[in-house]
């Protein structure tokens, strides 16, 4: 699907986000709709507020949402728009019009593979089937920050000028790279290249993002089995079955060296040291050798029984080399002198494959009986035994965030495990034996080699940790830090504000507001605070204290105050935002809901519980009126009401509200949604607080059931670890029969 290309989004560029650039003469250039920034926005027709706010955010970031034209054919508009933003909310699912728009957008993307589809799942709406394996953004309908962040991703995607179309042909679930007699595979450290060792004597270098051919190395005379890149990506080494290891320059494609195994036995595995200065080979002769790049053997490591070695790996700090093979043990060697440091007894009939997690703390080994052992490297202790494969485990790979482990086996399956679970979270079928697997360095893809093909799988968002962090990490690598960019934008517009007359000054203040919102989204409270205050000051000077543009800076200033636990100030800010919004729209506008909830929360925090209840009730009624009684946003505010009752020690009332919230969530989000699990956990904790063990157990078991269902579902929804731990605590309490008082 074309959407897969999004996973390659690399930067959150604030300067790019606002779509204004300064030229060499001090002038400003602004993008126009003619530049291909037209957006068709698919929103639930009944949610005008969301539509307007999302349109505003798109406009603020230099995109051009098309205004509905009377009598215009919306299908044609979707076809013509280069970008289609799909706001997928629970209401959208029940809207025939929305579903028709999704369908038209999907078909249009098949016809025009340059078209960008950008789905934003609102309020935890279920993703439609066509999003399977693709990236989407999640947002709350109540928080503009979410929408801003999502749109920033879209801006970056467009701004980077990438062509998702090229990616789409490769990165869909059914998509595969053909590679006759493919064996080992490896990504370069920057993910730019994917190398494939083939039995017909070549190392194929493919583009890591698009899968396109970049180079073919080798003369086709050697049976290439395994491949690996040097850490800097300049060299690629391939081990052939003919007792030879070849090294090529990845830029020129020239063969730079060949290492002949002295014993004439085939090299079974190769690995570069983390500093890139040496290469290790494991041999069928039972000897591991370290080589320098002049082909000189630096040191040999000889296992006691000299049984064939199958696998070799460096610890990430480069201090140790570990070997595994048919002597059933993992041996740890000092890379400086070749001395054996330790031996790990595996209990496997042989060690077929091994890998370190990137943090160096965990080592995994796979055996011929389909079993894998995880080791705590520091303590030299096995921590888990993973079973599931029905054939020899041939390859293992940790995701870069060390959260996931992938294993490949002769049974034609790739299984995905989280390292704290002993059951796989996914099972990916392949045609034929899977000989090699590797996560891409950005953790977004998993490549698997099986039966003349390289299957490329997209790692679901829910299984990845630190979604923003990965984006930011890539941003640091490719461009100035986003914070600096933001500063630049802020400074630019501050200068603008100082130098220009009133109308422009007001406009500059609106820009300052945006910068402030973005800084707040980054958690940079001080910087956000000063810009928002500045924006408010400028808008008040030019437009008066009731100007509608003040709502956003007041709201965000309130959120900054809340983040700093300055509750009286937060109350003042939210009060101001509500006052202005009511002047503009009256007391019956859906956008008031989120402001009322924010104010209610601030009041609760400063123990004004009656006032908080009043505000939450008002928000609930407003939301129910505009969104329907069974909307997740209504459930959210019912949960807020329950929190207030808990603080009052009105536990019965709190229980009634929690049950009500869970029911609304079940109806609106489905019975197995993580939000339902969270509500059940809260009910369990409430029961524990009341000393009701039977009820507590019942809620905990229901919650556990949802966790298990989600873990084994093909979808991407997962329950947070915190919920998992909470349930375990409840069950421990139920089983242990602890006295109630200790748990309060």
């Amino acid at each position, binding site marked *: *699907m074309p959407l897969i290309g999004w996973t390659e989004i690399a930067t959150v560029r604030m300067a790019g986000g606002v779509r204004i650039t300064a030229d060499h003469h001090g002038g400003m250039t602004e993008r126009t709709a003619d530049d291909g920034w037209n957006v068709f926005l698919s929103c639930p027709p009944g949610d005008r507020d969301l539509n307007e706010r999302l349109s505003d955010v798109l406009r603020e970031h230099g995109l051009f949402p098309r205004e509905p034209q009377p009598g215009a054919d919306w299908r044609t508009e979707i076809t013509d728009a280069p970008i289609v933003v799909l706001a997928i909310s629970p209401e959208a699912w029940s809207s025939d019009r929305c579903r028709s728009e999704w*369908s038209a957008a*999907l078909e249009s993307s*098949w016809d025009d593979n340059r078209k960008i589809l950008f789905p934003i799942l609102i309020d935890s709406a279920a993703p*439609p*089937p066509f999003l399977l394996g693709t990236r989407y953004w999640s947002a709350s309908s109540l928080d503009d920050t979410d929408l801003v962040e999502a749109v920033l991703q879209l801006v970056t995607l467009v701004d980077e000028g990438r062509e998702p179309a090229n990616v789409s042909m490769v990165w*869909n*679930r059914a998509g595969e790279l053909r590679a006759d007699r493919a064996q080992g595979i490896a990504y370069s450290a920057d993910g730019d290249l994917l190398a494939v060792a083939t039995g017909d004597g070549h190392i194929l270098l493919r583009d890591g993002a698009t899968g396109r051919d970049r180079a073919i190395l080798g003369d086709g005379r050697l049976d290439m089995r395994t491949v690996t890149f040097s850490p800097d990506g300049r060299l690629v080494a391939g081990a052939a079955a003919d007792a030879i290891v070849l090294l090529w320059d990845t830029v020129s494609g020239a063969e730079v060296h060949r290492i002949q195994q002295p014993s004439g036995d085939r090299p079974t595995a190769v690995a570069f040291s983390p500093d890139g200065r040496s290469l290790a080979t494991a041999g069928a002769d039972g000897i591991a050798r370290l080589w320098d790049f002049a082909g000189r053997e630096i040191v040999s490591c000889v296992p006691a029984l000299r049984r064939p070695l199958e696998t070799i790996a460096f610890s990430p700090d480069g201090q140790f080399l570990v070997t595994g093979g048919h002597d059933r043990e993992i041996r740890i060697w000092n890379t400086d002198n070749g001395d054996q440091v330790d031996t790990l007894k595996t209990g496997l009939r042989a060690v077929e494959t091994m890998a370190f997690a990137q943090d160096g703390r965990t080592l995994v080994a796979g055996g011929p009986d389909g079993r894998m052992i995880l080791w705590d490297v520091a303590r030299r202790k096995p921590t888990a035994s993973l079973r599931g494969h029905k054939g020899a485990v041939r390859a293992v790979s940790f995701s870069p965030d060390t959260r996931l482990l992938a294993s490949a086996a002769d049974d034609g399956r790739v299984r995905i495990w989280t390292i704290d679970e002993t059951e796989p979270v996914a099972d990916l079928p392949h045609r034929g034996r899977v000989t090699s697997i590797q996560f891409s360095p950005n953790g977004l893809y998993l490549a698997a080699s099986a039966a003349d093909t390289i299957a490329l799988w997209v790692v679901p968002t829910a299984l990845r940790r630190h979604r923003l962090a990965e984006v930011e990490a890539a941003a640091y690598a490719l461009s100035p830090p986003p914070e600096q960019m933001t500063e630049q934008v802020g400074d630019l517009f501050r200068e603008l504000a100082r130098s220009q007359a009133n109308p422009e000054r007001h406009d500059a203040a609106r820009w300052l507001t945006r910068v402030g919102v973005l800084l707040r989204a980054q958690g940079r409270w001080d910087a956000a605070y000063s810009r928002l205050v500045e924006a408010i000051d400028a808008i008040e000077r030019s437009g008066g204290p009731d100007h509608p543009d003040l709502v956003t800076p007041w709201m965000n200033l309130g959120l900054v105050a809340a983040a700093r636990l300055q509750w009286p100030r937060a109350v003042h800010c939210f009060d101001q935002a509500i006052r202005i919004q009511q002047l503009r729209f009256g007391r019956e506008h859906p956008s008031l809901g989120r402001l009322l909830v924010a104010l209610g929360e601030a009041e609760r925090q400063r123990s004004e519980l009656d006032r908080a209840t009043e505000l939450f009730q008002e928000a609930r009624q407003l939301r129910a009126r505009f969104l329907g009684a069974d909307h997740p946003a209504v459930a959210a505010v019912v949960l807020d009401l329950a929190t207030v009752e808990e603080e009052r020690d009105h536990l019965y009332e709190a229980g009634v509200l929690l049950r009500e919230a869970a029911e609304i969530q079940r109806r609106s989000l489905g019975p197995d949604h993580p939000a339902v699990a969270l509500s059940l956990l809260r009910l369990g904790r409430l029961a524990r607080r009341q000393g009701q063990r039977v009820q507590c157990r019942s809620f905990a078991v229901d919650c556990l059931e949802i966790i298990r269902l989600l873990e084994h579902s093909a979808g991407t929804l997962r329950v947070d670890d915190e919920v998992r731990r909470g349930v375990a605590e409840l069950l421990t309490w139920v089983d242990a029969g602890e006295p109630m008082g200790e748990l309060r």
Partner: protein
Amino acid sequence: MTESLLADVPDPAKSVFVNCPFDEMYRPIMDAIVLTLVCCGFHPRSALETGSVSIPRMDRIAHCLLSSRYSIHDLSRCTGDGDRNLARFNMPLELGIAIGQNMRPVGDLQRHDWMLLVPKDHPYVEFVSDLAGYDPKEYDGSVQVVVQRVMGWLLTLPGGIGGLQPSDVLGRLEAFGHARAELTTEWGEDVPWPELVLAARAAAAC
């Protein structure tokens, strides 16, 4: 094999009633629709599946349609036909049942959802003008486009299997065509519907 499939009562929530012409000229399109449905995780249903039993045809059609959550309707064959230039109204009639079930669902089923296919520039609005305002999906008579149209709809429905592209289905059409030819050799023109669905499943699993 047929018996086992008949015994396997399709899940109504994944059933799609196919209201399309059965003639030979339309057969490639029909096959493409059936295979697309199977590939996307749905169960094709048809008036043909119950065969010639002693239940009035309309009853059989209504039962089949009303026990399906979804339906696909193609109005290709509503124009004049034969020496007497008679129009055929069966398909609009069945579409009407689907629309009724969409507006006022009967029984335990959730609201029925339907999709309308029309050939490009088809004058359907002139002879069933009440359909103005709905958004039929136009196709040019090719299997490529019809697969795309049907997939584009199915992949927005709850329960559909995503991750596929039209090329995935089109790539399996040839295998399905061979299976269909074998079935035709065995059964003549009246290939039992369950056998056809089984052949589609086999092709989809390739």
